[in-house]
């Protein structure tokens, strides 16, 4: 799971985990957090990466062994949309990703915020339609209310099990 800092990655992970071991307080992640949880028969090992500029170089180290990528975008942070796009381009061009058919789930998070951009606008701004060799989907979510998360993760689970069958 990648995305700029403050986009809501850790908040989303804590929602996905069963209620019992939810992290009570969410602080900016340092380095990365490794979270294990089960969601509808699928056992996830989630690498919740830190999104701070000085830590983003760590992302690419985990590209090789990942089965899918969740890219979280703060849709209310219009200023850094271009930065997120830049990071996505770096990700797509990375040799450990570019040739592989890894599914990418885009979460346009913080849709509850008033100035948030719609998922369609973000997809356009990012030029997502140009991604032809990988399955992808974008969902507007809110980690505060949990809205949209269900659909997103269901699509993701489906993609992961499909690619598992193919192998």
């Amino acid at each position, binding site marked *: 799971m990648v995305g700029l800092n403050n986009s809501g990655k850790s908040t989303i992970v804590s929602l996905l985990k069963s209620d019992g071991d939810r992290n009570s307080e969410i602080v900016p992640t340092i380095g990365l957090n490794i979270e294990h949880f089960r969601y509808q028969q699928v056992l996830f090992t989630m690498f919740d990466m830190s999104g701070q500029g*000085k830590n*983003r170089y760590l992302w690419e180290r985990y590209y090789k062994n990942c089965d899918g990528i969740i890219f979280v975008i703060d849709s209310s942070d219009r200023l850094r949309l*271009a*930065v997120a796009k*830049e990071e996505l381009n770096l990700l797509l061009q990375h*040799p450990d990703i570019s040739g592989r058919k890894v599914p990418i789930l885009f979460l346009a998070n913080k849709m509850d915020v008033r100035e948030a951009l719609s998922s369609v606008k973000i997809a356009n701004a990012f030029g997502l339609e140009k991604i032809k060799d990988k399955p992808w989907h974008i969902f507007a979510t809110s980690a505060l209310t949990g809205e949209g998360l269900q659909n997103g993760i269901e699509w993701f689970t489906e993609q992961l099990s499909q690619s598992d069958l193919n192998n």
Partner: protein
Amino acid sequence: MSSADRPKEENPWIDAYSDPKADLQTFSTCLTLSDLNADDDHKLVIGDIGNGIQSKLKVFKGTSLTAELPLLTQPTAVKCVHTDRNEPRVAGIIVATGANVLVYRNCRPYFKFSVPPQECSGLEVEIWNEISTSEQLVKVLKDLSMEMGFSNLSSPSQNLLLMSPSHREEYISSKLHCVAKKQMVITCVTTLNKYASSERDVSVVLLATESSQLFIMDPETFTIINEFQLPDVCCNMYATGIYLVEYTLILAMRSGALYSLRIKHLKFITQLMTHTVSLLMVSHKIITANMDSTMSCYNLKGRKYWTINLPDNPLYMTGIPLPNLALHLTAVCFSRANINLYNDSSLVYVIATQEPIHSMVFGKYGQEEHALITIASSGTLDIKLLKRTAQFSNDYKTVQKNYVKPHEIKFLVPKKSKLFLEQSLRERQKCKEMHSWFNHSWTNMKVQVSESYIDALHSANVVQNEALRIIVEVFGLGPRMKIRTVLQNMSQNIMPMNYKVTFIYDAKLYKIHQPVVKVPLMVHGIPYSLETLVTCQTAVAGVVQVVVVSTKVILSATVNMPDSAGILE
């Protein structure tokens, strides 16, 4: 593709946002970034001059304007400081305008602080108290201004002298009460951390005034905690360090002098040949961007490290600290267009812009660490964010063709010829003789020059001087004759004084009765005739040269004397 093998030419900046309709007009001194609300989301604070009609204080969050407050007067500087150490660490906005420092917190007026006015000379107070007619008052004040300098007069006196005569009467009757105080005008403002180097620490505010003072104001109590009298008006300053521990303040004076202030000790650094536009300190080195399109670097002792030519007149310079790249760049924006980034003296990148950038600021903005925010001449707000993968290298290929780095300028040194070697050998062996020969030739040349000068004086009959006309007449046939010299001042502007007429002649032939004739003050256009008697000594006709002199020869004329041979016999 990893970051190392990316092409160097790649733009290290992400153009995150640009708003051509922002219509912002401001100076870099009125542009600042700060975590105003203590929510880790840095805001942009702008003192917008608004076409000079209505100044406003504007706060931007991300890409949108979130607060706007009217300002009654035009701001000189806008800074953000923490005024206390209470949690949450909400920052205050400081607006310097005229003699006042307005403090805002949570976008509401919070405090108004005024720089104390200066007492004026008792003489001036007396003048104001005793003289009531406007004409007389203006006259006496004018004399006083000549005596002690206009800038040392109190503000009412200055206003009175500058206003049109018709308004004076009214002004005097309304202003009679508050004379003798000179309002301060703040010229520049900077901030300095008080206790620790943390970004969230309380900062003291340094205020320089038009009356050559420097005040240090503590925002915790809004009092002046230190005051310095400077040798001149400070128009630019830069502060580093911690006020209560150790700090260095660099002051650029209006005369072009640089001073440093370290632990209350003011020290002269150097005198620049030109005026500084902007001032920075990067790792103990002072960098100045100057009005003669150069950028120079000095140490604190005034030793110059380098000067480079800038492609254009600089408007502002700001530091771009990039600790993760171990770099501290300097960004300079120019009066025509573009922003150049320098690492020390080498150009590392040119940000091409369509129009001149009038103000810029670099720092944390929103969630981003490295944001460069610029405002162009048309009022366009532009936000650039530094890429995570950005690299700057000193061998940046410049687009300007004739840019040569100073250490790359090659001198055309010819090869050492045989002749040169022989000559240098001889110079070493016979240095004494060569030196004395040189001196000999030098003196010789000086003698020759003097001789030809004297020659020239004698041989030149009329030294061209348009302002003076000379007519010489000789009356009589001898042995007694009279020479009349008529001088006329043709110049309207010059009144020649202390001129004398004298004569160069052969004493064997003539005796001149009054060899030096004083010339009175000559009024324009009127001919003055000066006469003297001459007696011939022998029966030979000769010449007499009439010379007009002051401290040097002004004019000369030669007269052929009549042949008096027959008469003498």
